Each structure stands twice: as C-alpha cells, then as structure tokens.
C-alpha cells in the first residue's frame, strides 16, 4: 500500500535532486535521475492497476488546512479514474522523458529541463490522485507553474517568456473560476472531499446553486483545457521545447479539465444547463481550432490547434454526458497527439530547428521511422478505422447523434477539417520535393534511438489504443466504460448501429474524403501554401487566427495597461495626492495669509484688540443679558 506514496514522491525526488544539483552534474546522470522516477512510477501504476479491486481507497497523508470546522487534508484517492490517469501520465511521461534525452542532449539546461519535467509529473499526479478539490487545485496550479517554466524554458528569448506568461495568466483566469467553485462547495458542503460532496448530493442534498458550482468549475477547465475564450495560450505555448508540447500541452495537462469534469460528473449531471453550455463551448472550440488549423504553416502550430480542437471534442462528449467516451478520447488522444508532437519534434530536430512546413517536403526517405510513425499518428487522429482515433471519436459522435443532431453534424464538419489539415501537414512535410536550404539538407538525419523508440511505442499505442474500449459492434467489450462505470452515472447503451447508417457513415466520409482532397491538392497538384504576404481575404482571416489575439489585446491588455498608467500617474498623483497635498497646501496658503495680520504696527495691534474686545463684549452681553 505504501508503495502508492512512491508514485508521486519519486518524481518529486527526481525534481529535487536534479534541481539542486543542476548545473553541477553530468547530463547522463541527470537523464538517469530524471527518467527513472516516472518509469518506476509507471511500473507501480501498472501494479496498482492489476491489483485494483474496484473499491475506492482514500489514503490520509496529513492534515493540511484546518480552519474551524473546515478540514482540508492531504488525501490521496485511488479509484478507477485516477488509476487510468496514472497510467497515461506515467506511461506517456516516461516515453517523453526518454525522448527528451535525445532531443535535449545539446541543451545547456538539460538537468533543469528534467527537473521541471519531473516536477510536472509530480504535480500532475497530485492533480489526479488528490481526494478533494483543494488538493486537486494544488496539482492544477502546480502544472500551470511547470507549464510556465517549460514554455519559457529558453528564457533568453523574450517572446518565449511572453508566451509562458500568457499561458500562466490565462490559466489563472480559469483558476479563479475554479477557486470560486471550491468556495461554493465549501459553503454548501463544508468540505472539499469528493466522497463527502458526491455522497451528499447523491443522498439528495442538492443545493440551489449547484449549477453555479458546475459553471465555476468548468471555467477552471476552460482555462486549463484551452477552451473558448481562454484558448489562445495553447498555440503560443508551442514556444517550449517539443517534448513539453507533447507531454503538457497535448497528452496530460490540457486534459486535466476533462479529468476534472469527469471527476465531478455527479455535480455536472445535475446541472443540465451547464452541461449544455459545456457541449456548445466544446463544439465551438473544436470547430474554431479545426478551421484555424486548416491554414497554419508552422508544424507545431497546426498540432496545437488540432489539440485545441480535439479538446473541444472531448468537452462535446462531456456535454452529451458521454463521460467514458470522452475519457476514451483523452487516452487515445494522449497517444496519437504525443506521437505527432514527438514526430514533429523529430522533424524539427532533423531540419535544424525549422518549423515551417512550406520549407520542408520530401522527408520520408530521410527520416523513415519518423515518417512511418507520423503517418500512423495522422491516420489515428483523422479517425480512420481501425486506428484508435476512429473508435474514440466515433463513440463521442455516436453519443452526440443521440444527444443533439445539430451538434453532431457540426462535429462531423470539424472532424473533416481535422483529417484535411493533418494530411496537409503530413503531405507537405514528408512527400514531394525538399524545399529547405542546402545546409539543412546536408544535416538531415534520423533521430537517435532514444527519440525513435518512444515514437514506435506511441505509434503502436495509437494504432492499438482503441482496444481499451473496443465497442461491441467491433467485437470488443467496452473495457474502459465498464472499468469507469462505478464512478459515472448509469447510461443506457446506445444500441447497435450499422456501418451503412448515417450515424456511422458520415464520420467515415469525414475521415476518408478530406485526405483524398489533401492528396489531390498538395501531392498531385503540388500546391504549396503561399507566403505570408500573399494571403488574402478569408484565408488571411483564418491564417491570422481570426485576429482573436489582437482582439484580446485591444479589449483587455491595452485597457489594463492604459489604466495601469492612468491610475498610477493620473489618479494617484493628480487626484488623490492633489487632495492629500491640497490639505497641506491649504495650510501653507493660510499660513502665508495669516502672517499678514501680524503687520508690526502697534496702532494696528491695539486697534485689533479693541475690535476683539468690542466683539467679545457684544457677543457676551447679547447672550447673557438680552
């Protein structure tokens, strides 16, 4: 049992050791110190998974905050959901650690990087293991911190630093909502423990403002999982090293929002309006991400928008109460998106840090393993059967079909965009002629084993990941759904569908047709996206991400900056201080005036005295005698 503590503790130890010994130890040692903890944690997680008996365990670690009647302990909760998350985090995490050994080998901040990665794993594990919302919040903010540190890892560059800050601040906006949610929970339930809150709700104690609670929690999720309107940080976050993009901004951290909603499904289930809202936010985000992704030329940016869009899908699923389907997509997405990012990293590595797909092309023979694995990833994300993405996405779509036809059809549209832009990237990168410089050409090389092995493993998982929750019609037994069932509201089975029905057919069309189109445009006609200056019209609008960043800049950043200066210079100094110092000025003025009555002339003095006496006598006599 005590081994469970080791799961989060090990990465923390890794962080401490690497963090304190940096930069004094060798890279090899740092790599070992950094990689072993998640690996061991993964092994322990597997053991936990195997031995899991289906009952929720709560491990009391320590008291944390005790405030009168309110107790917030450091409790860890082991149940079906957290075990699955553990597996994803430690598993994908380990692979990305291994990948980083190769990817970061030339970097000066090698040890530091591993320290941060380990810290991230630690916080992510706290996030999923926490037995109450407050401990979850520790992880929630902690991963935000790591995200900040890692996006700004190459901190000499100011634009990276800005991206890092943007990520942290946008997350903080969501966190405020989350915090409010926690306060509301405390108000209503006097506790933040999952078990207390959920059992209380299930026993019929449903507070009036449960919808508000759900909404506030979801605001937190919007920040963390990059949903409209808090999504713009995620594409910018690609400034960080690619393994970071893979681990934090694709596979794990950004799915924390989905994890949280699933965790709190008891609350959301009783707030249908909020759930509806979640679905539509998810849909809008999915579509927006997919559309913007269509015209991006930076390989990581495309993947980033794709992530935004996929996260949107997951929320759509949640909106339709398809918790297990969404979670299924979280897992498969972790595999294929991590794969794609790592593949992209490998490409970038090969191309000597070039990220623009217009300057790539024809890489398939030069870096075959990357090519092959990237292909598998692309197929998976496009939802082509029998790859994992097909099953998970299809399950969400199937639920949507029964939930809301409009949402479903828009989702299909988004799905079509996804497969189009993924194939666009894929073709432009690997097929056709090489369009880079000669210097880059001479450097082209396949990545070292430490990078390719994780690619291969992830490729296998992307292909076979669907097995976890293989639906009945494909001969599976929906393992994941059954595994999570005790934690989720009971849903009616969707029933059998035929491949020829609209419900099944449309996604397939959306998966197959756009790639053809992409092949036609970019391979057969050899079209290459035009240079930045030549894009016009709606294409420009999309390429510039609908100017949302600029809009935010205009309506939020600039006013705040303006008010900062305005308050500081104008209000403080001209208004408040004017008043404060005005009092002093008045005294000074009075002082200079008062001294004039002291003229120095005796006659005048006596005159003043006589006048005063007269006044005093007059006043006195008036009040006493008259």
């Amino acid at each position, binding site marked *: 049992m005590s081994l469970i503590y080791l799961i989060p503790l090990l990465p923390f130890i890794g962080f401490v050791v690497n963090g304190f010994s940096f930069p004094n130890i060798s890279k090899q040692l740092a790599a070992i110190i950094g990689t072993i903890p998640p690996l061991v944690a993964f092994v322990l997680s597997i053991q936990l998974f195997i031995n899991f008996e289906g009952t929720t365990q709560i491990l009391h670690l320590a008291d944390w905050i005790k405030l009168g009647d309110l107790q917030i302990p450091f409790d860890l909760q082991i149940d079906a959901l957290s075990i699955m998350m553990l597996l994803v985090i430690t598993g994908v995490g380990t692979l990305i650690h291994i990948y980083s050994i190769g990817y970061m080998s030339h970097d000066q901040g090698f040890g530091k990087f591993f320290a941060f990665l380990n810290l991230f794993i630690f916080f992510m594990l706290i996030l999923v293991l926490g037995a109450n919302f407050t401990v979850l919040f520790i992880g929630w903010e902690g991963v935000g911190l790591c995200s900040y540190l890692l996006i700004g890892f190459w901190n000499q560059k100011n634009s990276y630093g800005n991206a890092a800050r943007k990520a942290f601040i946008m997350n903080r906006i969501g966190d405020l909502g989350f915090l409010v949610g926690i306060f509301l929970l405390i108000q209503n339930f006097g506790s933040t423990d999952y078990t207390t809150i959920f059992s209380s709700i299930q026993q019929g104690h449903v507070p009036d403002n449960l919808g508000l609670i759900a909404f506030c929690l979801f605001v937190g999720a919007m920040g963390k999982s990059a949903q409209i309107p808090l999504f713009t940080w995620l594409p910018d976050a690609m400034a960080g090293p690619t393994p970071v993009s893979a681990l934090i901004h694709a596979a794990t951290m950004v799915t924390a929002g989905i994890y949280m909603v699933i965790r709190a499904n008891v609350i959301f289930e009783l707030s249908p309006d909020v759930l509806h809202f979640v679905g539509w936010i998810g849909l809008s985000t999915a579509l927006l991400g997919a559309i913007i992704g269509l015209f991006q030329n930076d390989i990581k940016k495309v993947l980033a928008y794709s992530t935004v869009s996929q996260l949107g899908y997951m929320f759509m699923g949640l909106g339709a109460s398809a918790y297990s389907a969404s979670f299924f997509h979280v897992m498969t997405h972790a595999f294929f998106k991590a794969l794609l990012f790592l593949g992209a990293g490998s490409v970038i590595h090969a191309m000597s840090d070039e990220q623009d797909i217009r300057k790539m092309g024809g890489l398939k023979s030069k870096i075959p393993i990357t090519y092959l694995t990237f292909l598998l990833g692309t197929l998976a994300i496009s939802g082509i059967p029998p790859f994992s993405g097909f099953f998970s996405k299809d399950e969400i779509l199937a639920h949507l079909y029964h939930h809301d036809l409009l949402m479903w059809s828009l989702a299909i549209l988004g799905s079509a965009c996804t497969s189009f832009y993924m194939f666009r990237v894929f073709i432009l990168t690997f097929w056709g002629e090489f369009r880079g410089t000669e210097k880059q050409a001479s450097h082209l090389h396949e990545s070292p084993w430490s990078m390719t092995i994780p690619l291969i493993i992830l490729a296998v998982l992307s292909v076979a990941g669907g097995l976890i929750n293989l639906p009945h019609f494909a001969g599976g037994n929906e393992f994941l759904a059954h595994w999570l069932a005790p934690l989720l509201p009971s849903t009616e089975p969707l029933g059998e569908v035929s491949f020829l029905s609209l419900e099944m057919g449309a996604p397939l069309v959306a998966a197959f047709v756009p790639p053809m189109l992409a092949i036609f445009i970019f391979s057969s006609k050899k079209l290459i996206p035009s240079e930045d200056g030549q894009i016009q019209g709606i294409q420009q609008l999309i390429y510039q991400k609908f100017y949302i960043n600029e809009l935010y800049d205009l309506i939020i950043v600039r006013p705040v900056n303006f008010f900062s200066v305005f308050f500081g210079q104008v209000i403080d100094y001209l208004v408040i201080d004017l008043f404060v110092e005005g009092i*002093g000025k008045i*005294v*000074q003025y*009075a*002082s*200079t005036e*008062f*001294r004039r*009555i*002291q003229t*120095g002339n*005796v006659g005048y*003095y*006596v005159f*003043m*005295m006589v006048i*005063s*006496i007269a006044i*005093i*006598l007059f*006043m*006195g*006599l008036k*009040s*006493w*005698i008259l």
Partner: protein
Amino acid sequence: MTAIIALSLFGISNLFWGFWFPRKVLQILTLLFLAIGIGLTAMDWNHELLWFGNMFRTTNTSINFSLIIQLAAFLVVALSRGFGADDEHTHPAEYYAILLFSVVGAILMVSFDHMIMLFVGLEILSVAMYVLTGSDKRNLKSNEAALKYFLMGAFATGILLFGITLVYGATKSFYISNLANIIAATAPESMPSFLYIGVLLMLIGLLFKVSAAPFHFWTPDVYDGAPTIFTMFMSTVVKTAGFAALYHILSGVFGGIYSTWVLTIYFISMLTLIIGNVTAAYQLSVKRMLAYSSISHAGYMLMTVSAMQSSSTSTVLYYSLSYTLATVAAFAVLILVSEYQTGRKEKPEDYSSFEGLAKNNPGLAFCFTISLLSLAGIPMTAGFWGKFFIFSDSFNRNIIYPVILAILMSAVGIYYYFKGIIAIYFKNGDIEKIEVPILFKIALWFCTIATLVLGVYPNIVKSLF
C-alpha cells in the same frame, strides 16, 4: 511665602554684589538664591496658609506653580551665560536682580487671594519684563519689542484694572474667596450687569498675558525682538504665571458662572490654536516659530481651562511643566546655534542656521529633537501626556469639536516642529563642534532627560499634583 521675601531680599542684595563680583559668581549666587527659594517654597507643602492680611494664600497648587516658575527661572539663569556677551553696557547684576524680582511677581500671581496681589504681581512681572525685553539697548529690534510690549502691556493692564473695578463694584470685594461666595450666593438676575463686563475685561487682561488670540499680537514681535534668553523666560515663567492666574480666577471665582464665559474661552482657544499653529507653519525663523508655538500651546491650555474638570489643575500643571522643560531646551539650543552662526549667516535664528547640526553636535541635536518632539506631542516625551490629559479632560466635558480641531492643529504642529528636526539631521551644513559651558550642559540635559522620563513615566509628577 517666605520665598517671596527671601527672593526680594536676594534681588536687592544682587544689585550690591554686582559691584564686586564678576558675572560667573553672580550667576552661581543667583542659582543659589533660586535654589533657596525653591526650598522655602517646598517647605510650605501641605500647609495651607494666608498671609499679608489674607491677601496671599499658599496652597499645594500654588506651590506647584511656584515651583515650576522657580525651576524655569533656575534653568534660565543657568543658561544665561552672556546677556549679550562681554559688553561694558551690560549689567548682569541688574538683570539677575530683575529676574529675581520678576520671579517674585510671578509667585504673587499664582498665590494671590486678593485682587491687589494679582495686580501687583502682574505689574512686577510685566515691568520687569519690559526692562529685560529692551535690555539689548542698541539693537533696534530689542527697542521696538520693548516699546510694543510696554504700550500694549500697559493697555492690557488698563483693561484688567477696569475689569477688576467693575467686579468690585458689583460684589464689593476684592477677595477671591469672598467673590466666589458672593457670586454663588446671588441669583444671576440680581447681579448688576456690569459684573459680566468686568468678568470679561478681567479675562481679556489675563488672556493678553498668556498671549491668546486675538490678544496675541505682541507675542511674536516681542519674543522675536527680545534677547533670546529673556524670550525663554517670557515664554516659560510669564506664561505659566499667567495661566496660573487665569486658572485661579476662573476656577476660584467664576466657577459659579461657568456657562457665562465658557463659550468665549472655547472660541478663543480655537482661534488661538488656529492662528498659532497655522502661522507658525510659515515661519522661517526658529525663534519666531517658537513664539507662535507658544501661542498655540496657550490654545491647548485654554482647552483644559475651559473644561474645568477635577483633574484640570493637575493637567495645567503637568502641561506647564512639560512645556517649560521643552521650551527651555529648545531656546537653549537656539541660543547656542544663533550665537555660533552670528556673523556666519545673515539670519542666525533661521531654520537654515540649524542645518547639519547633528553632524558634529549630536548631543545638542538630540536635546533639540527631544524638545521639539515634546512640543509636538510625540509619545515618549512629556508633551504627549500633556496633550493626552488635555484631550481627556476636554472629552470629559463633552467638548468634541475643539478637540478635533486641536488634533488637526497638532498635525500642523508636527509639520513645523519637524522642519527643525529635518534641518538638523537631514540637511547638509557645516556647523563645527560648538563649545557648551558646563552649567549650560547640565541644564540642557536636565530638561531633555526630564522630558523623556516624564514621557515614559508621567506618574512621577502627575501623582504629586
């Protein structure tokens, strides 16, 4: 009482010693006389007695006031090393004699039980002060101050006398104790109306002496023009005696018709506070600032007087003492610095002359700071408790707005007192080490330490009163 006789005799004898002894010896002698005076006064403690045909009464309160007055005089004498440096025209023996006489006058003013004693005491004190003010004979400022003081003082005496006469006319008595009884025994309606005029005129005459606005006009000019050592004497001894007399009259005689004069005193105290503090804020000369500050302190003390609480006596005493100690120290440093700066600076008494004092004279700077802090009423100094007792008495009478005004005005006070502190600590200047005579040093440190001790443990004195 014996102190009065002794001090008068000493004063006369001083005039003779002046033929034989140099200034140093005279100074020591005078200190000795004052010490004897203090001793004799203290011996009367707890003996309430009437003297001179019941015209003079010693009570513990009057003894306390007498002690404060003599202490102040003692300090002034200890600090009086020059009287205008070595000059054949100065006559130290006369000055010391006059000082002793004026102390006698002051003691009469605090212990009178008959209007004649009040008048005589007041005139002894005033006439002595006219002389001392003009003692720097070839200094036009001193001349001018003397004439102003003299003319206005005589005028005020006239007013006071007219007031006394009217009160006498209304009550047929000059005795304080009788007056109180007569006023208490007679119904207000049957009083002749000129009693009230008399009361007011008497008050005005005394308010002039304590320099309450709008009868303060002489104060800044006279304080400014007089030699600093006598300014020190005026702002401590004369003021304390004036207050004692005023308080004695008000509490002893007119307590029965409290409501008739209290509003007047309120307004006068508020006006005094405003004029004193606000005008002081402008001053460039420390001496003039201290003059206005003494006006403002009159305003605070008037508040207690108008509150008329059982504790007011001790408050007035405590305040007088703390004010005396701080003022003496401030003037003492002013004397040293202005003497040092004479010839070096155009205006040796300005704030600018103090700049950089702390660098080479930390002791002087410290004493000056403490005295200013005490005047400003900052905790740890005697002035703080003085203000505390005053506000506390006033609140007990439910006097709220004057207290709030006083609070605001003491904030203004902090402004100009700290200007001095800023000058000595935080401005750059080049004042070398100033030689301080030993007596001077003792007196200065006595004031400073007493201010601090009273600030930390006011009970030492407060329990006596």
